[in-house]
C-alpha cells in the first residue's frame, strides 16, 4: 500500500516537475534574470549584496549550475505536491470517490488553487528586488492560507451539506479578509511591466504543471488499483 502510494506520487511528481522546470527556464528565467539586473543596478554601495545568488554570478549569461539546481528543486517540489495529492486521492477513494486520470485533472487544478493561486491573490507572485513584509510572517500566512484553502476545497468537493459549503466559503475567503502581511511602503527595482508578465506566467505554468501532476497521479492510481485487483484475483 505505502510503496504503491509513494511510487505513483514520485513518478507523477518527477514528470510534472521536469515539465515545470523546462517551461520555467524558457519562459520565466529571462524575466527573473532581467529583474535581478535591475536589482543589482539599484544597490548603491559596492559592498551591497544581492539576495540569493552573488551579483557576479548573475551577470554571467546562462548559468548551468543554477539552472541545474532549478530543475532539481522543481522536480523535488512537484514530488512533494504529488505525494500530498496522492495521499488525499487515496483518502477520497477510501471514502468511495473514484479517482481517474480525468478526475486527476480536477485534483491538480484544485491543488494549484490551494497552493499557488490562493496565496498569490493576497501575497502576489514576486520578482526579486521589491518591497516585502517580514519573511517569517509571510511564510506563516502562506502556510495558513494553503491549509485553509485546501480544507475549504475539500469541503466544497466532498461535503454534501449547506454547513460544509458555508465552512468552505469561510475557509477560502478567511485568509484574504484577515489579509496577508504587507510591507510598510512599496518599492521595486524592476519595472512594473516586468512583474505584470512574470506573475501570470508563473501562475499559468503552475496550473499546467499541477494538472499534469494530478492527471498522472490519477492515472497511476487507477493502474495500481488494477494491478492490486489482478494480484488479489
Amino acid at each position, binding site marked *: 500500500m*505505502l510503496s504503491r502510494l509513494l511510487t505513483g506520487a514520485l513518478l507523477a511528481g518527477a514528470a510534472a516537475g521536469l515539465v515545470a522546470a523546462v517551461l520555467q527556464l524558457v519562459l520565466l528565467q529571462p524575466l527573473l534574470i532581467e529583474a535581478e539586473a535591475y536589482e543589482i543596478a539599484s544597490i548603491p554601495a559596492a559592498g551591497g549584496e544581492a539576495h540569493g545568488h552573488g551579483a557576479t554570478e548573475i551577470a554571467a549569461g546562462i548559468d548551468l549550475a543554477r539552472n541545474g539546481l532549478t530543475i532539481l528543486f522543481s522536480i523535488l517540489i512537484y514530488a512533494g505536491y504529488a505525494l500530498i495529492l496522492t495521499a488525499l486521492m*487515496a483518502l477520497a477513494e477510501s471514502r468511495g470517490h473514484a479517482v481517474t486520470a480525468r478526475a486527476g485533472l480536477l485534483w491538480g487544478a484544485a491543488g494549484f488553487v490551494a497552493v499557488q493561486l490562493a496565496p498569490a491573490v493576497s501575497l502576489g507572485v514576486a520578482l526579486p528586488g521589491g518591497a516585502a513584509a517580514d519573511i517569517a510572517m509571510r511564510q506563516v500566512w502562506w502556510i495558513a492560507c494553503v491549509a485553509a484553502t485546501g480544507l475549504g476545497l475539500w469541503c466544497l468537493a466532498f461535503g454534501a451539506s449547506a454547513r460544509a459549503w458555508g465552512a468552505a466559503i469561510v475557509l477560502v475567503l478567511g485568509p484574504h479578509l484577515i489579509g496577508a502581511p504587507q510591507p510598510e511602503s512599496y518599492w521595486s527595482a524592476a519595472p512594473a511591466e516586468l512583474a505584470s508578465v512574470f506573475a501570470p506566467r*508563473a501562475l499559468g505554468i503552475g496550473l499546467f504543471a499541477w494538472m499534469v501532476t494530478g492527471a498522472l497521479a490519477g492515472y497511476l492510481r487507477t493502474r495500481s488499483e488494477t494491478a492490486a485487483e489482478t494480484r488479489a484475483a
Partner: protein
Amino acid sequence: MTQALTALRDTSVSHLAAIALTFALGAGIVFVAGHVQAAALHDAAHDMRHATGFPCH
C-alpha cells in the same frame, strides 16, 4: 467473524497510516524545499521559489 472484523480494522488502520505517512512526507518536502531559509538551501531553491510563488526573501 471477530477475526474478519479485526483484519478489516487492521487493513483500514494500515491504509490510513500509509496515507498519513505519504501526506507527511510530501508536506515535509514542500516545507524544506519551499520555506527553509538556510542560506545554501535558499540559494539553490531560489528560482523555483520565485516561480512557484513561495515567499522568498
